């Protein structure tokens, strides 16, 4: 059996600038923070980022100026505030972006995962979302057409096949078999749409453990190129069954993201100023804080 467990710096070194990466978080949950921090430290530039509903991870990357093209279904940091960096970048037009919806991004990933180059959808009609896509460079990804059987009008969407998909999971074995606890939003489709797939796992378990409940394996090992093992790897976002979000840090983040200069201070302190994720966790409060955030087994948070 092959051991796919790798360090994040090793994995990120294999991602060329200009890559299309798909990120698996949703707002303030299961963000691949450990990967995003390393992408920033290694200054991978001109990235295309796609995500169903963006969250902190994409806001960080956009704020760090590494994203040239953003494909998104919407998003915020929930009650903690908006995705300031993403919103500011759209206002200043400092990147190319296309707005979609949760389902249309999911369908684009689904098509990619199934090896279909297109898929029909009945969302988007009569909206400014579709209008703007059709009027801009997004026009090459959407096309109105009729069902050949019923005559019904559809929007056809082009499949998304990111160069690398990243998702954060609770459990993986060293071969890459992944089990997700809690709802999975678009993770399965996004992960399997990727040409390459990297997972961040809170815990590495034995293959025997995976074999005890194979129905929970959402991503089978043969699809996974690398497993990054990082406890508390999604902080300050939450991981169901492992830990709650760090509300204090989320508020601190939003405060900094409001203004470009303060955001640079944030990067300096929490990304560039940390050699690795362990050092970052120390800045978040270390062991004592982690134990406060650790999930209680019944509630899962």
């Amino acid at each position, binding site marked *: 059996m092959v051991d796919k467990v790798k360090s994040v710096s090793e994995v990120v070194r294999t991602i060329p600038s200009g890559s299309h990466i798909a990120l698996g978080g949703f*707002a303030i949950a299961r963000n691949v923070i450990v990967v995003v921090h390393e992408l920033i430290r290694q200054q991978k530039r001109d990235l295309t980022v796609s995500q169903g509903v963006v969250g902190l991870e994409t806001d960080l990357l956009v704020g760090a100026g590494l994203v040239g093209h953003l494909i998104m279904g919407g998003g*915020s940091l929930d009650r903690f505030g908006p995705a300031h960096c993403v919103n500011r970048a759209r206002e200043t037009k400092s990147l190319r972006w296309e707005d979609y919806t*949760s389902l249309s991004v999911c369908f684009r990933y689904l098509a990619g995962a199934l090896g279909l180059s297109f898929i029909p959808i009945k969302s988007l009609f009569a909206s400014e979302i579709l209008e703007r896509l059709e009027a801009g460079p997004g026009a090459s990804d959407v096309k109105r057409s009729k069902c050949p059987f019923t005559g019904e009008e559809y929007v056809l969407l082009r499949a998304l096949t990111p160069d690398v998909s990243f998702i954060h999971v609770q459990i993986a074995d060293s071969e890459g078999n992944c089990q997700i606890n809690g709802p999975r939003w678009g993770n399965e*489709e996004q992960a399997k749409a990727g040409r390459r797939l990297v997972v961040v796992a809170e815990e590495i378990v034995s293959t025997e453990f995976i074999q005890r409940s194979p129905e929970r394996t959402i991503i089978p090992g043969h699809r996974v190129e690398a497993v990054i093992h990082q406890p508390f790897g999604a902080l300050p976002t939450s991981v169901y069954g492992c830990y709650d*979000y760090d509300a204090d840090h989320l508020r601190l983040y939003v405060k900094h993201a409001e203004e470009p200069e303060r955001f640079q201070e944030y990067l300096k302190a929490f990304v560039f100023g940390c050699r690795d994720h362990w050092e970052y966790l120390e800045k978040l409060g270390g062991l004592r804080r982690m134990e406060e955030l650790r999930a209680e087994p019944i*509630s*899962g948070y």
Partner: protein
Amino acid sequence: MQVTEGTKGRNARSDIRATEIMATAGARELHDGEVVVVGLGLPEVASVLAKRTHAPRLTTLLEVGVMNPRPKDPPVGLPDSRSFYRATCWSGFLDVMGMNLHRGVVDVGFLGALELDRYGNINTTLVKDGAGKIRYVNGSAGGNDVASLAKRVIVIMRHEKRKLPLAVAYLTSPGFVGGRSRQELNLRGGGPSRVITDMGVLGFDAKTHAMSLLSLHPGIQLEALVENTGFPLHIPNDIPTTPLPSTEELRLLREEIDPKGMHLK
């Protein structure tokens, strides 16, 4: 799906808050046995109230892939672990939004709005200030999908002139665009059916598809409501008063559903 709450505080004629009237009016729009895609905030509060009163068989779906959760602590958003608690099914977008919403089995989409126009078009993408400067906000997430595909849509929001403009600054999620029928617009879902604000309950004319007043909340003056509406509103001759929450509804809201006043403040 962003939801904006009424925050006009306590109602003029009693100690009942506007948000409590909104939640109760929202709950009464939901029928037993229906399937509802809800956003967090007042839509969730209203659907829990409906379940605890006249609609015990209501099914609530969260777009992240959660069915019938029974949170014991208030979640800050859809992907908050608190909103997964005691769910009967965890799946994902493809199931909730694809195999339910796009499949056509969702009766009600319960949404918030940053802006809403007279044809029920929703903006959750950007705001323009007086000088035309654009500020982006959340975008669609599942909002456009829900508005396009649910059999009917209920919007719950604060009643302010700038939030109810003649034309939305960005048409994120379609209602009856330009007063046209949903069929003409290639939309499968039935479109907006009710708008519940902190001043009244509004509906849509079956022919013109334009918004009309259905009831005024107790203590709200018609003039105030018209004043706070940015588009011409059809006003019927007889304007009923929105029923107040019953004692039991108030007890449930205050003691069980939102005891900390997170959404009902």
